[in-house]
C-alpha cells in the first residue's frame, strides 16, 4: 500500500472526477428545484383550513423529517419496486431528495411567513387588497429575505448529501471516486480530491448566498445590522 501522493495519477483521474462533479451538481440543482416546490406544497398543506389535508400534511412532514435520508433513499429504490413502483436510480434519487428537503424548506417558509407581522395583513385588509395581492405584493416579498438564509443552508446541505446517492448507484462524484478506487486500489488521491472539490464548490456558494442576502435586504429597504 503506497501512501505517497502521486500527482500524475491525480491528473489522470481528474477528468473522470470532474465528470462526476457535473452529475453531482445536476443532482443537487434538480433535487433542490423539486424541493422548493414540494416545500411550497407542504407549507400550503399545513396552512389550509381543510382539516384532513392539514393533518395529513403535518404527519407526512413530521415522518420524513424524523427519518434518515439514506433509509428513504433505500426505501424508494429497493422497497418500492416490490410494490410495483419502479424508478431508475436517478429518478429515485430526485424524488427522495425533493421530498426530504421539501419538508425542511416548508419549515423555512413557515417560519418566514410567521416572521411577517400580522399588522401587515391588517394593513392589506384596510387597503382592500385581494388575498393573492396580499401574498404577492406584501407578504412574500417581506418573507423572502427571512427565508433566504435557511434556503441557502439547505442548498449547501443538499449538495453535501449527494454522495449518499452513490449507495444506489447514481454515478456522481462519490461514485466516480469509488470506481477509481476499486479499479486501481489507490484511495488517497480520489477521496482527497472529492473532499477538495466539495470544498471548492461549497465555500464560494455559501459566500455568494451571504452576499445575496445583503443585496436582497438592501433592495427591500430593510437595513441589516
Amino acid at each position, binding site marked *: 500500500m503506497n501512501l505517497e501522493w502521486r500527482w500524475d495519477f491525480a491528473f489522470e483521474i481528474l477528468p473522470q472526477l470532474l465528470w462526476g462533479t457535473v452529475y453531482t451538481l445536476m443532482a443537487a440543482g434538480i433535487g433542490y428545484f423539486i424541493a422548493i416546490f414540494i416545500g411550497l406544497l407542504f407549507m400550503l398543506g399545513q396552512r389550509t383550513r381543510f382539516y384532513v389535508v392539514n393533518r395529513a400534511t403535518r404527519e407526512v412532514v413530521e415522518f420524513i423529517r424524523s427519518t434518515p435520508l439514506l433509509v428513504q433513499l433505500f426505501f424508494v429504490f429497493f422497497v418500492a419496486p416490490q410494490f410495483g413502483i419502479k424508478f431508475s436510480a436517478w429518478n429515485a434519487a430526485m424524488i427522495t431528495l425533493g421530498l426530504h428537503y421539501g419538508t425542511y424548506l416548508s419549515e423555512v417558509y413557515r417560519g418566514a411567513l410567521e416572521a411577517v*407581522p400580522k*399588522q*401587515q395583513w*391588517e*394593513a392589506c*385588509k*384596510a*387597503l*382592500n*387588497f*385581494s*388575498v393573492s*395581492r396580499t401574498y404577492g*405584493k*406584501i407578504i412574500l*416579498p*417581506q418573507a423572502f429575505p427571512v427565508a433566504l438564509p435557511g434556503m441557502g443552508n439547505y442548498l449547501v446541505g443538499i449538495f453535501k448529501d449527494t454522495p449518499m446517492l452513490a449507495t444506489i448507484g447514481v454515478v456522481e462524484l462519490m461514485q466516480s471516486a469509488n470506481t477509481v478506487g476499486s479499479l486501481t486500489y489507490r484511495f488517497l488521491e480520489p477521496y482527497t480530491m472529492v473532499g477538495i472539490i466539495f470544498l471548492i464548490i461549497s465555500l464560494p456558494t455559501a459566500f455568494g448566498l451571504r452576499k445575496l442576502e445583503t443585496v436582497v435586504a438592501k433592495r*427591500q*429597504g*430593510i*437595513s441589516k445590522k
Partner: protein
Amino acid sequence: MDNKENIKHEPLVRFHEVTKRYGSLTVLDKLNLDIQANEMVSIIGPSGSGKTTVLRMLMTLEMIDEGVIYLEGKPLTHMESNGSLVLADEKHIRSIRSNIGMVFQQFNLFPHMTVLQNCVEAPINVLGLKPDEAEERAIDLLGMVGMLDKKDEHPSRLSGGQQQRVAIARALAMRPKVMLLDEVTSALDPEVIGEVLSVIRKLNSEHNLTMLMVTHQMGFAREVSDRVCFFYEGKIAEQGPPSQIFEAPKNERTKQFLSAVLNAN
C-alpha cells in the same frame, strides 16, 4: 318625498346592536352608534372599554358576533340571502371595504416599498387606477401631509411622525368615505405628535372628511370633534358635543375618567 328625506338622513355608518366577544369576555355590548357624513367623532375611555374594537369591527378586521354594521344604509358585515341577512363573505366585504380607510397606531407601512409605492400600490391594484393617475394622486396627498420630499425613501429611514403622515396619505389615496384613526399618536415621541395632529386638523377643517377617532389626546378631541363618545365596558356611557363631555359630564364614570386623565397631565 318622505323616502328621499329618509335617505338624506341615513347615517354614513350605523352600528346596530353590535356585540363582540372574545371567549367569555364581552368587548362590545349591543352597541348602537350612528355617524353622519362629515361628522368627526372621537371615542375616549379607559383601556379595555372596547374603543379600538369599534374601529376594527368597522374595518372588518374582526368578525362580528351579533348585530349588523351598515355603511350608507347597506349592510357591511352581512349580506342578503333568500330574504334574510347572513354573514358576509369575502367578496361582499371587498365590494364595500374600499369606502373605509384606517390609520393604525403602529403605522403599518410596507417596509419593502418606498413612501410613494406605499401610496400607489392599493389605488392601482384595488381601484384600478392607471399608474400615472395614482402617482399624481399620491404626490398631491404627500404634499398635503408634508412628506413629498421623502417620497423615494423607505419607511425605515423615517421618524414615527413622518411614517404616520405617510400612513394617512396612503389611506386617503383610496378616497375613503370614512377614515378610522386608531390611537394614531400613541406610539409617537411627544415632539412629533403635533405634526400628525395638524394633518388631522387639516383633514377635518379643509376636507370635511368623516372621521372616527380613538384617542388619548383629550385636548385634541375636545378641539376638533363634533361629538365625543365615552366608552365604558363595551358601551357608550355618555356622548355629546365636546363642551358637554369635557365641561359638564353627567355620567359618574365619565367624571372619574376625565379627572384621572386630566390630573395625570
